[in-house]
């Protein structure tokens, strides 16, 4: 299965903020500008924050996977963002976060291939080999190749 989800890679984002709350606002502006769909940054931010309240998405090892169901979104998006300035995420291991997978899914999207792809990605993100690979990518192409691999194997 190839990656049939719109995937964007942003490497070395020179983020202004390193506290989670302000960074989310900054991140959502960046994401919004990269998207073809006209979903407001604030809408994305609210979806991510809503989810973040339940359990932190910083799952350790400098990685986080903020995600949410976004009102008005037509098809899902996946972003891989590597920041220059690590974020205080209140992660499970209390370490700062530098590598961020953002998953946005439409609020009314059920039972389709996109969600399947994203769930396989999440499953494989727990793999320490994949974690190592994604944390050492040199460029956008390499990042996309690894993500492609991560969704291809179950």
């Amino acid at each position, binding site marked *: 299965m190839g990656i049939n989800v719109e995937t964007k890679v942003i490497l070395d984002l020179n983020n202004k903020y390193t506290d989670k709350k302000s960074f989310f606002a900054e991140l959502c502006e960046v994401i919004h500008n990269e998207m073809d769909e006209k979903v407001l940054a604030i809408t994305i931010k609210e979806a991510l924050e809503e989810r973040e309240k*339940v*359990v932190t998405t910083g799952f350790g090892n400098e990685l986080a*996977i903020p*995600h949410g169901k976004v009102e008005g979104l037509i098809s899902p998006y996946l972003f891989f963002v590597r920041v220059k300035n690590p974020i205080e995420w209140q992660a499970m291991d209390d370490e700062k976060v530098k590598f961020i997978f953002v*998953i946005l*899914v439409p609020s009314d999207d059920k039972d389709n291939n996109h969600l399947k792809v994203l*769930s396989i990605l*999440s*499953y494989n993100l*727990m793999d320490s080999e994949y974690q190592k690979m994604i944390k050492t990518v040199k460029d956008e192409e390499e990042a996309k190749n690894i993500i492609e691999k991560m969704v291809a194997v179950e």
Partner: protein
Amino acid sequence: MNIIAITACPTGVAHTFMAKRALEDAAKKRGHEIKVETQGATGIENELTPTDVKNADILILAVEVGIAKSERFKDIKKVEVKIGTVIKSAESLIRKIEEKLENKE
């Protein structure tokens, strides 16, 4: 041990599947059989059958939302844990379950 588990979280695309992976890895490492049902955005996957339930020693519920078809698990020992606990420290969870079951038998 024969472990069965259900993972579920509100969005059902990330933690549900990360917890599944964490449980599978930890169980394998400790030499146990495990089957994990996910109740995520794509519905129920890898569904636990009556036979699975019958043969299991323990059910781990790593859920942050109500689960579907919970009537299947009336007669089995259960452990309820936060999904974050599973992702963070699945192996120590499995160890604790081992101890608990050993002490009772």
